[in-house]
């Protein structure tokens, strides 16, 4: 299996212009998804924001009803209300948290209708977000600091161009996977944030492996002595010789996220979805974004 990987001699770099176009289209879709679904701008075209209750807050209702929790849960969910339901204290008391839109009284009516039991409403209140604006902003700032740290480390270990290219690829991966997830109308909950953070680590790993090989092959030459053709060949060789590793690793990670996507149920769906796109895009970008951008920069430097 995968024999073709071992004597691979693909002209990846020759196709980089095609890849740039593809990336720009995907980036556009991703940014579209993020603007329309995660910023208030979406309301201009009548799209609801997809931040989950973790970020927006919602309603908290406490009820007493003589029914087991599984019944209550399925009753609420079958009415199309995305809710978090917990048993609290005594046996038949339940805490229901859900996004706004449904009055507590109508929720009680729905429950009574579905369960055929009397429901006592003990408490109905607005609940603030689990991740408030402050926490959200902090997460964004931290991720940017993280990116800066990556940039500096790669600069220190390789060179600045590789650093910048790796960080650009990171943005590329996150925007595309998060953006498309949003564009399709899936909710951004806490697990999506976890997926984005995981993806950052994965993407940078992949870029470094290829960067490392490029450096190894380049080390044999002096930059000024190589013709543009040879330079391109070095990049292609580096990518081709790491291709088995790239494919195998992506495949194992893909196996994990894809099984979670298919079998994991609704709880892990958002996480797995972002990761599934992210794995594919992350692999693609280390070849076609990181390596290609560095190559173009070098070619240009030679040209001038």
């Amino acid at each position, binding site marked *: 299996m*995968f024999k073709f990987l071992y004597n691979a001699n693909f002209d990846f770099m020759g196709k980089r212009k095609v890849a740039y176009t593809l990336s720009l289209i995907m980036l556009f879709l991703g940014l579209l998804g993020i603007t329309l679904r995660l910023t208030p701008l979406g309301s201009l075209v009548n799209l609801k924001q997809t931040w989950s209750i973790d970020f927006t807050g919602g309603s908290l209702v406490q009820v007493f009803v003589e029914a087991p929790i599984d019944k209550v849960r399925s009753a609420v969910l079958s009415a199309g209300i995305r809710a978090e339901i917990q048993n609290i*204290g005594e046996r038949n008391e339940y805490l229901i948290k859900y996004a706004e839109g449904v009055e507590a009284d109508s929720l009680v009516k729905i429950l009574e209708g579905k369960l055929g039991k009397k429901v006592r409403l003990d408490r109905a209140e607005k609940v603030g977000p689990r991740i408030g604006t402050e926490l959200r902003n902090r997460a964004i700032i*931290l991720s940017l600091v993280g990116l800066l740290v990556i940039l500096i480390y790669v600069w220190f270990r390789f060179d600045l161009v590789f650093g910048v290219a790796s960080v650009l690829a990171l943005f590329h991966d996150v925007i595309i996977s998060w953006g498309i997830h949003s564009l399709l109308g899936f909710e951004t909950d806490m697990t999506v944030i*976890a997926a984005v*953070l995981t993806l950052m680590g994965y993407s940078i790993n992949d870029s470094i492996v290829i960067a490392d090989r490029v450096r190894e092959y380049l080390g044999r030459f002096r930059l000024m002595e190589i013709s543009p053709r040879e330079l391109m060949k070095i990049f292609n060789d580096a990518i081709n010789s790491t291709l088995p590793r790239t494919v195998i*690793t992506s495949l194992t990670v893909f*196996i994990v996220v894809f099984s*979670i996507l298919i079998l994991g*149920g609704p709880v892990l769906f958002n996480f797995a979805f972002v990761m599934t796109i992210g794995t594919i895009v992350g692999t693609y970008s280390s070849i076609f974004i990181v390596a290609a951008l560095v190559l173009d920069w070098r070619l240009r430097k030679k040209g001038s």
Partner: protein
Amino acid sequence: MSNKNLIRLIVIILTFVVPLWLLQPTYKVLTMSESEKEKLNPLEFQKLMRNSLNLGLDIQGGMYVVLSVDKDKVKGEHIKDAADRVVEVIRNRVDQLGVFEPVIQKVGEDRVVVQLPGVISKERARMILGKTALLEFKLLADENLFADFIRGVDRILRGGKMLSADTLRGPFSSLLVALEGDVAVAEENWAKVDSILKLPEVQNLIPVGYEILWGATQEVQGKKFRKLYMVKAETPLTGAYLMDANATIGQQQAAGQPIVQIRFDRTGAAIFARITGENVGKRLAIVLDGVVQSAPRIQERIPTGNAQITGIRSLREAQDLAAILRAGALPVPVKIEEERVIGPSLGKDSIQKGMIALAVAFLLVIAFMIFYYRIGGIIANIALFANLILILAIMAMINATLTMPGMAGLILTVGMAVDSNVLIFERIREELRKGNPFRTALESGYSNARRTILDANITTLLTALVLMFLGTGPIRGFAVVLSIGILVNFFTSIVMTRWIFNILLEELKWKEVAI
């Protein structure tokens, strides 16, 4: 077997035995039935819980606490703001305690709902959530002033009549006893003394600029006492200048007792140096939430900005106190309005589905590695398994909380950890294709891949560290697990697999290993 390889083999075996041993409490807790848990004495159970992995609110539920902002202490329009700040401080506190994965939300205008996973004693919850953690330093009043006050109270209680003889004790002073040179009250008289102190005419008797404070509860020969102090009302130094707080066991005067060592920032240290310098020989009360913890005599000027809080019952309490002091005081006092046990937020079927998905994912990775790399794959899988249990064991040691998404992240980390071995094996294959003998291919495969692996992982580790030290809440939890995973991976996939190869080649005299 050569000594070197013997040691290696032992370390490998320990890599499995030690984590499995550390995970034993977790296994016990998870497999124990409810009735068995009830039979266990609470202390033992707590010890078991402390050493085991916590399951998150989504999987096992936990404790539900409603805090309400003390409205009398805040002015109207600030209530909303105060609740927001309470959320922040509580989040910091819980963060200080480790990877707890709590849910902290504002409810309505002036209340905060906190959910903590797992089993936590009510006292501990009260300590972590309910304490304002306002730390103040106040100078003690002159002893004569306090004695005058006590005599004055006696006089008031007896309707202004003077004492006929000094040996006769008054109605107030008869409730007091001497303890370690201070005035103390035995447990049975606490309520009485407190109500006397609250009388308006007694309040009027307190000299202007002074106040009377209770001390922390102390046990002397099986009886409980609380001291009474008269202190200057002005507070020259508070916990706002605190830079760090750590729980330890004290030495010298507080030998063997749990204490919290605190360190002030530069401004705080300067104030502290001035107070201690100007008041050598006087006593300084360390007041926490209005209760005097201790009132040591100032021996000399303290320029370092270090101080210690004593009068704490257990090391656990000291640790919690240090954590809440580091997180800072609540902007307003809160009341615990409701405390309840709360069930998991995920349904049984959701939990089951998630678990099955994760197990399948893990098994598929293992199967793929064996299929693709044969013996090499088996070696990689051994490392993978070691990696997984090591991470879990470290998490259990720091009493971390595992949520469903957290587990998904864990499996993913492990899935990504394969990458290191894939890198190594592919390098070895490359060398083998060049016609190198196995031994040489192995050597250069490892040495070439090592640099790549280090670079790739250090970059991720750096980001994780940024998130860990500056992040909060779920982001921090994520970063902790990620960092542990990477560090463990350095050992299992680079060092441990290499050792296994060495043992196979040198001791079992294999000519080569199928990769």
